[in-house]
């Protein structure tokens, strides 16, 4: 079979798209958005039931909705989108043909089949086992089979990505090292391979157990290995959305990483240490020693947290440098004040960084501290945390990226004009509020995955404090805002892709390239601006010997909140019953 070597250059951005790769990216992104739509519809039922003033669904339907909501959002929306990102970061950024598009399609259809099968099992009504499907609670065999199929498909996608890297190197389509964003995508893909392996190790025996071929699945073993899959898949998201942050800074501002060395080392720390984090789900479990828990939950002395703190500085820092070089060099924050606050990709990424750091990052470390976990485990604090990390951090970053990619890949204008920027603000801020109030309710003891915290009709009913109920109400109000924001996103993207105004480029065509792509770009004639400014005493930008002093001040604000909240939690822990 002849290799398809047709490419087109995007007239607006100069990005190069390989024909089959582009088609795959489009299909993966479209299916991702369909999963988001399904997850979003389910979210309505979940939210309006937990808002006990409405208490919409019956318990069995609620647990069924919650299971499917978790799977469609955390797995299908995110991973389909990530496969598109992997192909973008390899084929497009390296200006190279995608390796084995046929395999990529096979992987894609396996993922689709797996997602459908898994959703079917939940729809049956006998597999409301939640995203975590903790054995010995069992689901229908198709539940596990669907997940396994999906995971194998995703694994194929990862290997197509690795193959593309090899092709790019072999056909010399780029000079020197891969771009930082591609490096981030490589990090995500390596973590994905580990993750899917853990998933296979636990889901295959669980599937065999569900059809009666294996007699017993130990609950502690299940939780230990399952979280190697369940949490690690969230670490793929972290790596992917940090890569998207860097990409956004580059696309919107032309920002260059402050230091390739620092950012790449931070990604490397993710590869080494993020996997250990799955242990922080087991801090309140019997049968594991404190030494094991402490070392693993700290991601080996918090070296992966360090990496996130570094990215949290370097992404806004690189934006600050780019803005200062453009002339916004007055004071600490002119660069930020004069940032394009009406640019949807920028605002999405900015809110993503702030909410991921302040709400998601800090709360994640709290839950992942061995003893503090005792006052958090399985409360609403936990979904509060991951609605900050995944629903705001990852999802909002991906939403921002879509607004950039629809004109580029689908060649349609974004519909409804200014609605996109409103969508970003409404979704981002509501989701942040939802997370915050969930954490508040969790701090007051409200459990997660619970149909009725009023325990109506129960002789032993427990009464939660009024403030917990207030938090639930506030959570619900913010949740309605998030639903609105999500609906706006779906309306804008679906309308733009299928009915949006076509972007016409008269001489548009796919151009065959003989080997790889046309010549690799020539090295820049002049040394890069940032290193030039660095060597020439900052080229006059920045203050106090720093090129990004504003970002540094923001980072110190972050650190102060982190330290205070950390010790507030220890103080709270010290007031509960002594336990040993």
């Amino acid at each position, binding site marked *: 079979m002849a290799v398809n070597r047709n490419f087109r250059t995007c007239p607006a951005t100069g990005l190069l798209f390989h024909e089959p790769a582009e088609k795959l990216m489009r299909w993966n992104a479209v299916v991702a958005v369909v999963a988001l739509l399904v997850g979003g519809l389910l979210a309505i039922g979940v939210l309006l039931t937990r808002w006990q003033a409405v208490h919409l669904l019956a318990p069995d339907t609620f647990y069924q909705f919650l299971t499917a909501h978790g799977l469609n959002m955390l797995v299908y929306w995110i991973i389909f989108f990530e496969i598109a990102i992997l192909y973008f970061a390899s084929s497009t950024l390296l200006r190279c043909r995608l390796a084995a598009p046929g395999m990529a399609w096979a992987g894609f259809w396996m993922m689709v089949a797996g997602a459908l099968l898994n959703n079917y099992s939940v729809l049956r009504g006998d597999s409301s086992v939640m995203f975590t499907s903790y054995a010995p609670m069992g689901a229908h065999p198709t539940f596990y089979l669907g997940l396994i199929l999906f995971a194998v498909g995703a694994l194929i996608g990862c290997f197509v990505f690795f193959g593309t890297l090899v092709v790019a190197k072999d056909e010399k389509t780029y000079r020197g090292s891969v*771009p930082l964003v591609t490096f981030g995508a490589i990090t995500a893909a390596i973590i994905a391979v580990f993750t899917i392996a853990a998933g296979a190790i636990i889901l295959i025996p669980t599937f065999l157990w569900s059809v009666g071929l294996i007699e017993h699945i130990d609950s502690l073993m299940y939780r230990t290995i399952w979280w190697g899959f369940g949490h690690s898949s969230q670490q793929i998201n972290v790596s992917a959305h940090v890569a998207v942050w860097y990409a956004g800074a580059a696309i919107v501002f032309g920002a260059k990483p402050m230091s390739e060395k620092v950012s790449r080392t931070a990604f490397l720390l993710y590869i080494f240490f993020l996997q250990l984090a799955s242990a922080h789900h087991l801090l309140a479990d019997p049968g594991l020693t404190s030494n094991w828990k402490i070392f693993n939950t700290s991601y080996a002395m918090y070296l992966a947290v360090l990496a996130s703190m570094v990215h949290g500085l370097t992404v806004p820092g690189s934006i600050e440098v780019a803005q200062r070089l453009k002339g916004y060099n007055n004071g600490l924050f002119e660069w930020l004040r004069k940032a394009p606050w009406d640019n949807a990709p920028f605002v999405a990424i900015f809110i993503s960084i702030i909410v991921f750091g302040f709400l998601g990052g800090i709360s994640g470390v709290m839950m992942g501290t061995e003893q503090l976990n005792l006052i958090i485990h399985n409360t609403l604090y936990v979904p509060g945390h991951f609605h900050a990390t995944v629903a705001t951090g990852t999802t909002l970053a991906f939403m921002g990226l879509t607004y950039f990619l629809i004109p580029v890949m689908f060649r349609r204008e974004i519909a409804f004009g200014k609605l996109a920027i409103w969508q970003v603000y409404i979704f981002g801020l509501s989701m942040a509020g939802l997370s915050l109030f969930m954490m508040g309710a969790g701090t007051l003891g409200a459990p997660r995955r619970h149909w009725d915290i009023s325990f109506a009709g129960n002789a032993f009913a427990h009464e939660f404090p009024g403030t917990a109920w207030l938090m639930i109400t506030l959570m619900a109000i913010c949740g309605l805002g998030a639903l609105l924001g999500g609906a706006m996103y779906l309306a804008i993207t679906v309308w733009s892709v299928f009915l949006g105004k076509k972007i016409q480029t008269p001489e548009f065509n796919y151009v065959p390239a003989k080997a790889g792509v046309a010549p690799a770009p020539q090295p820049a004639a002049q040394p890069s601006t940032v290193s030039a400014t660095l060597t020439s005493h900052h080229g006059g930008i920045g203050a106090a010997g720093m090129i990004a002093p504003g970002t540094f001040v923001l980072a110190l604000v972050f650190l102060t909140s982190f330290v205070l909240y950390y010790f507030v939690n220890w103080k709270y822990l010290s007031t509960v019953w002594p336990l040993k």
Partner: protein
Amino acid sequence: MSAILPPPERVWWKEPVDRVELLWIAIALVWCLIMFFMMPYWHVYGQQNLANEAYRTTPEAFAKKADEVIAKYKVREEGPQKTPVVKPPAGSDVYLVARLWNWQPILELQAGKSYRIHLMSMDWLHGFSLQPENINIEVHPGYDHVLTVTPTAPGKYSIICNEYCGINHHTMVSPLYVVK
């Protein structure tokens, strides 16, 4: 000249790093180490730690021990199911059975005294969530998890299940009394 292009300098690892980044990395690293050492510190000086004391056992063996304690120290019955309330002596071993969808027995403990509470599930995973203290511990089938707890203030507490355990998960709640 951006993160979506290859680094312009082929030898990018020799480029100087700005003071902003160096300073932040140093500060962040120190903070990470402080957070790390807080956990062992609390094991030595703090009051709230899990003991790591756990045994593998079977539901039958665990239920048998629980029944012995109930027979010995039962003081009354409560609720529609006539759930036994036990008042064990300070320092003794108490067995709390989690099953679909109740906790058994109801405990009556003395403030300021310590008890060795054994937690285990008879079937699926459950979550021990003591409210309003907000102490939360995972309860496994087959693992007898021993906690030495010291209730502080008298009052009526609740144990709710906070690990999803099926259709009646939200009905799994039990009181716990602490008396003077």
